């Protein structure tokens, strides 16, 4: 490893800071903000030690919640806050780290921007180094803000430091994982896919380990960095040694990324793609066929992810039901909340909330492909042929509409089937779950409609649609615990989705959401038809 291979890292760091000057502060600010909101919600909802004891016991005894979010390590506000915020913060921090690293390494290489830099005084390891320095630094800032915020809020210092550091540690881990993925794959999309799949794998391992802690399978949690976050036990006899595991993993991964980077050419990956067909299939003759050809694998991957999540939730619901059947005391406790079936239904409903957000994220990505086609100038080829702007845009939107239905249905089917088979009542559970899942479609389309409207009218601001989705998520997370006024909560389309399993189908909100989505999309399309391309 020569020093010259790193030259230009400083300049690249400044370039990244400049390019991400809007995004970086947002994702740094989000976790601390969320943690403090959660902490204040717990304080206001459960002010006494006794009430904190009760809620902690309820959570620990419901294996569904334990699997989704992990167990609560102590009946205190600090531990409850750590429990509630860890997974969500992990999604944000890990996602932001991975996306940032890939964006400034593989994406730049893929688009040829790297070539511009590479020919200057920039060493071959500089882009990877610069993106790692920026993300690792941003993670430390998150840790500092989380710690500072919680200490200021009056929580114990040790726990606050541990929680903050656990956020940073998961961020580091995923920055390093993305660094490796960016070397392996030849396209940024595949690199993002690898990082995403690894996150899902870690989540499943942790969920399986945490849910089966009593039956001695908690070692599964030790295989997952998401498990390590909990095993640090912030606010409950912190185990600092776990950070050594994090550190070891990060060092190994970064070393791996550097080794891989020296084994390949610029622009190439380790996983080399196969040759393609010399002639296009006869079906490849329309913008819709093109969209399908380009994105079918991505759609398949999303659908598979949703299906796995469905199996997991269905299985958890079954475990919960079993536990309640064999444990009359617990059953009594749950009868208090509306009975065993009500408990599994609210578990499903909670999982669906998560799912709605993820499906909306899919819909935004699918919609904003229009923008990346425009930015990369590929749209010029298509629009210079006998394809109208309307036909081109609606083709991609059609794939988004179908795709979002497919991924949601994948969850509904697999969850309904798993749970139905386990209770021996598929005929009842499957349609119910499917309807409850698909009820999220109109809300998802509203989010996609917002993305389309922004893209059509002010393409530069398309990314704001992510901020809008983030705001909806935050509203729901806070609204759940904090008493936010209904009129503000109602701003989120997700808040209008009927909880089918709990209170049955109501059609009108779905119709209104669909109309809203349609109007937003049409506004976007009109804007798009009347503006310059590129």
């Amino acid at each position, binding site marked *: 490893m020569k020093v010259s291979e790193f030259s230009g890292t400083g300049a690249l760091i400044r370039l990244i800071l400049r390019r991400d000057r809007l995004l970086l502060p947002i994702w740094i600010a989000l976790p601390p903000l969320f943690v403090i909101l959660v902490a204040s919600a717990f304080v206001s909802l459960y002010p006494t030690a006794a009430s904190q004891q009760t809620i902690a016991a309820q959570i620990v005894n419901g294996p569904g919640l334990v699997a989704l979010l992990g167990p609560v390590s102590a009946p205190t506000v600090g531990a409850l806050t750590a429990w509630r915020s860890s997974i969500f913060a992990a999604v944000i921090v890990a996602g932001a780290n991975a996306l940032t690293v890939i964006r400034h390494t593989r994406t730049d290489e893929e688009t040829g921007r790297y070539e511009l830099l590479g020919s200057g005084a920039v060493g071959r390891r500089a882009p990877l180094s610069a993106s790692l320095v920026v993300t690792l630094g941003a993670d430390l800032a998150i840790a500092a803000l989380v710690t500072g915020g919680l200490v200021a809020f009056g929580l114990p210092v040790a726990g606050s430091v541990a929680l903050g550091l656990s956020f940073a540690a998961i961020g580091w881990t995923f920055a390093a994982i993305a660094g490796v993925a960016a070397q392996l794959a030849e396209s940024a999309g595949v690199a993002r896919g690898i990082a995403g799949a690894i996150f899902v794998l870690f989540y499943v391992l942790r969920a399986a380990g945490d849910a089966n802690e009593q039956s001695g399978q908690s070692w599964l949690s030790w295989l997952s960095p998401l498990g390590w976050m909990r095993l640090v036990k912030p606010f409950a006899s912190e185990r600092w040694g776990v950070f050594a595991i994090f550190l070891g993993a990060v060092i190994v991964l970064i070393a791996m990324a550097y080794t891989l980077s020296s084994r390949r050419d610029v622009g190439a990956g380790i996983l080399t793609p196969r040759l393609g067909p010399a002639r296009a299939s006869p079906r490849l003759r329309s913008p819709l066929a093109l969209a399908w050809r380009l994105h079918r694998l991505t759609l398949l991957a999303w659908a598979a992810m949703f299906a796995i999540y469905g199996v997991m939730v269905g299985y958890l619901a079954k475990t919960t039901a079993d536990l309640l059947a064999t444990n009359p005391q617990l059953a009594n406790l749950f009868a208090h909340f509306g009975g065993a079936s009500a408990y599994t239904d609210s578990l499903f409903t909670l999982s669906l909330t998560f799912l709605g957000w993820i499906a909306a994220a899919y819909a935004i990505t699918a919609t904003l492909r229009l923008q990346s086609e425009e930015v990369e100038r590929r749209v010029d080829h298509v629009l210079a042929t006998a394809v109208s702007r309307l036909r081109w845009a609606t083709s991609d939107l059609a794939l988004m509409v179908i795709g979002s239905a497919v991924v949601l249905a994948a969850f509904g089917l697999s969850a309904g089937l798993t749970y139905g088979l386990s209770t021996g009542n598929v005929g009842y559970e499957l349609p119910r779950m499917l309807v409850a899942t698909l009820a999220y479609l109109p809300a998802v389309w509203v989010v996609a409609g917002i993305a389309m409207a922004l893209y059509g009218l002010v393409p530069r601001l398309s990314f704001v649609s992510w901020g809008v989705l983030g705001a909806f998520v935050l509203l729901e997370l806070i609204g759940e615990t904090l008493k936010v006024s209904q009129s503000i909560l109602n701003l989120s389309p997700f808040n209008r989705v009927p909880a089918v399993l709990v209170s049955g189908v109501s059609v009108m909100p779905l119709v209104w959401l669909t109309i809203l989505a349609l109007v937003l999309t049409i506004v976007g399309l009109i804007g798009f038809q009347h503006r*310059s391309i590129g």
Partner: protein
Amino acid sequence: MSVIHVENLTKSYGKTLALDKVDLEVEQGEVFGFIGPNGAGKTTTLRILLGLLHKNAGHVSVLGADPWRDAVALHRRLAYVPGDVSLWPNLSGGEVIDLLGRLRGGFDQSRRDELLERFKFDPTKPCRTYSTGNRQKVALIAAFISDVELFILDEPTLGLDPLMEAVFRDCIAEVRQAGKTVLLSSHILAEVEALCDRISIINEGTIVESGTLAELRHLTRISVSVETARPVTGLSELPGVHNVRVDGARAHFTVDAGAINRVMEHLTPFDALSLTSAPPTLEDLFLRHYELHTGDDAR
């Protein structure tokens, strides 16, 4: 009938004025060159002709149609090669060629095979692995397989090696033979000289010169190199003579087209032994306009 008619075309991006009252007239069956330095406004003009960009003012018609309103019908009749060819990384070159040909309304299979052969192009690789020149070939082949009336080519030889450039010139010659119209932008002057019937020079958004090559040559100077028995004097004082450099028996200078006769008379007493003169290349012409604009001309 003119195939492309542009009058007073003005376009600005925010505060940058990219095109300022551009006029352009391309006739049926000719190969028209559109040249200018980087950032002159060539791509902007071509993208307005395709209806991809809004214009701020002026009149544009392509094949008798308004490119903004009648884009789809118009695009069936033309083929476009963008200046910066970026392709779908996961599609193979062959797939892109077929797709674009089909979207334009169909193409001839045997013509496709023939062009692949001539451009020595391997259609099975994923587009992300193609070099600049190979990406350019994809766009060129996709354009030339179509039986259209008009070709709009933005710097079409970018990245092609000399052999492939020759193949490209053959393609243009065939297209011209078939009575089709070509508008090509370039800063490769030799190419424009070799290919084009008429040219327009654009600089900083304004057309500075248009006409046939012959017409434009009249506007510029001939460079002369002469060997005389006795050293030449007094050349610099002659009107229309520039850049005089005398070294011993040899003198080099450039002369305005209208002043040649006067120079010959001036040289006679010095006993010219040999004289070579070169017609202005487009390079000279181009540089001269460029200099004129930036104000460091020797005149």
